[in-house]
């Protein structure tokens, strides 16, 4: 069994690759560190000098607007130089491997890679490669790998929950939708169970749940009404259109009927329940506009908090 490559020999965060296995104190420290960064955004001059002179490379092997933009803003607010590469349109098509690309950028004195990749585990490969080639000073942040993890999304979700609900140990939380293909859901589950949430539920049809998901410490529901009863937080997942191919679901209409979040279904949750979504939303597929734009939705604050959380992660890594 290999050692987790994300902690250094002092047990400090060297890379952020997954939330799984991170101690509660580390998660809490990231959330605590993010709090003052929220205030930076309120200032006239939205910058702190923590990453001045550092080069952050956004390596996106898969399209993304929101995540890449918030990472870019976060790095810029920390005064780093930010270089964006959308690699699905450049060298990956010319047969250059992930590691070749990274080696070339490392030779340009990169200090941090923010990586998104369609294959689960790609950021682990990159981190292990950096360690194996004596370039431990380069930090890797996973910005989403395949179906595996999206740790900064998981962290910003925790920040949001803590902002509205304060005590994790008193909460019942439901994650609704395509858990099978969702890196967000996996990161959320690990974060919630680590932070001591006593009941984490997943709600989905059997075709959208991975085998053995219960072993991650969640309760499985197939009936959304039953699953939403009495919850404090509803975390919706995005449903990709391609799920209609491959016989996972019959139609978006039927999905919406069974698993779309409507005001009527939301009424089964606690009256003060909040509704979250990692974006981008498919209105009328997984969520009704009345809910998405309603008073219980905290979807836009999630985006704002995301910048502070990503600043915290990058600042902590650079400091370790």
């Amino acid at each position, binding site marked *: 069994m290999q050692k987790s490559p994300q902690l250094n020999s002092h047990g400090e965060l060297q890379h952020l690759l997954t939330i799984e296995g991170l101690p509660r104190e580390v998660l809490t420290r990231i959330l605590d560190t993010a709090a003052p960064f929220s205030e930076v955004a309120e200032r006239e001059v939205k910058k702190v000098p923590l990453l001045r002179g550092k080069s952050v490379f956004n390596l996106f092997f898969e399209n993304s607007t929101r995540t890449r933009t918030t990472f870019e803003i976060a790095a810029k607010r920390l005064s780093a130089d930010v270089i964006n590469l959308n690699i699905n349109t450049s060298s990956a098509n010319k047969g250059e491997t992930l590691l070749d690309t990274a080696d070339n950028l490392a030779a340009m004195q990169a200090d941090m890679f923010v990586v998104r990749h369609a294959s689960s*585990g790609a950021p682990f*490969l990159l981190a292990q*490669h950096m360690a194996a080639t004596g370039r431990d000073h380069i930090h890797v942040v996973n910005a989403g790998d395949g179906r595996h993890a999206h740790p900064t999304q998981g962290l910003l979700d925790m920040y949001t929950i803590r902002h509205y609900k304060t005590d994790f140990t008193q909460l019942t939380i439901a994650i609704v939708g395509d858990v099978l293909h969702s890196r967000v859901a996996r990161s959320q589950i690990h974060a919630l169970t680590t932070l001591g949430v006593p009941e984490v539920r997943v709600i989905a049809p059997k075709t959208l749940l991975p085998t053995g998901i219960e072993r991650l410490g969640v309760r499985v529901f197939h009936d959304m009404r039953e699953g939403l009863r009495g919850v404090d937080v509803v975390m919706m997942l995005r449903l990709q259109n391609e799920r209609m191919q491959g016989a996972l679901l019959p139609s978006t209409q039927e999905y919406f009927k069974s698993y779309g979040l409507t005001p009527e279904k939301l009424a089964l949750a606690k009256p003060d329940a909040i509704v979250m979504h990692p974006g981008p939303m498919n209105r009328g597929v997984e969520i009704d506009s009345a809910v998405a734009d309603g008073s219980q939705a905290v979807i836009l604050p999630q985006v704002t908090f995301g910048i502070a959380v990503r600043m915290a992660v990058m600042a902590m890594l650079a400091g370790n």
Partner: protein
Amino acid sequence: MKIHIKNGRLIDPASKTDKALDLFIAAGRIVGVGGTAPTGFEANSVLDATGCIVCPGLVDLAARLREPGFEYRATLESEMAAAAAGGVTRLACPPDTDPVLDEPGLVEMLTHRARLPEFAHVHPVGALTLQLEGKALTEMAELAEAGCVAFGQANRAIVDTQVLLRAMMYAATFDFPVWLQAQDPFLARKGVAHDGEVAARLGLAGIPVAAETIALATILHLARETGARVHVTRISSAAGIDMIVAARAAGIAVTCDVAIHHLHLCEMDIGFFDTQARLDPPLRSRSDRDALRAGLASGAINALCSDHTPVDDDGKQMPFEEAEVGATGLELLLPLTLKWAQEMKLPLAMALARVTSDPAQILGVKAGSLGLGAAADICVFDPAAGFRVTRENLRSQGKNTPFLGRELPGRVRYTLIDGHLAFDGTLG
């Protein structure tokens, strides 16, 4: 060349022999077993086997030599050196070369290239269908004449069951054995790991056990229909073993093998996306692994093989799902057999049968025994010596194995092939 192997503990599973006996070899054959040399025998060379076990050379049912077509991953020379160092004197190679082994000329070329005294005996498994595409039959009778001992698909399924039925019927006509891996291509589509806890956690696409059992059900039904002699390669699940046992009880002639990796590892060994553990079939659950270990001991599984698949570093230094499948194994077959025997507290003679006489029987060749007159294919190893698996220690061009860094028991001292000293472990 006359060779005297002295002071060893001779284990010959075929004759259920396990005692201190010397061996006398002349003209490539065993001419004497026991304490005294046959009359007139004067050894040119005496090999000291003190503290060692003398057993038949290992017979490996699956070793990819990567020729023709994939010489950048391995060559006949590098892999034959690995075989000799691993005590393997006879091996079957799957047809998934490039071009695939679907033409007699290719098979002849391979067996011709492999005909060197220090090389293990090579038995090509011919392609069952042209290009392994599962559409048209190969010239099996011609291929058999060229040296193929069986026909198979490596790990590519025949999707069209009518083609599978006819291929098995045609093979049965000539009583050619059919070697098939049981994996439904639809249930395995895009899958890279066992559909279980680890795949769920790591976000890897899963291959359910049903992929094996459904394909196996088809194969076993067609075996009954056609009377074909079927050998199921690389069984991976407890449910699969149960089906084989039930089929045998129902009178179907079926044998099966398991790979060394599946005998010792399970899905947990993927760790953090370790591409060395990217194998086909996937490593399954711990309870499946335990069933495989028990099944090989009971004889439900007939043979243990290396499933030797050298892959270069570039093929493994990739994200898990994009990485190439397979692991190098020729040099680990004996150590992992011994490790299994130790852990299961099995008699050595029985454990060694699974890598000598039993696979020889599946190959249908006279080999894997040390009786008088038998070909002198012999492995002499020190069971007390161990070694650490490192890139440097491996002679195979493939350094890809999930056992890298592990300490394993058993060190080969001598390997003889047809009485020729193919490997001498006493030379540094």
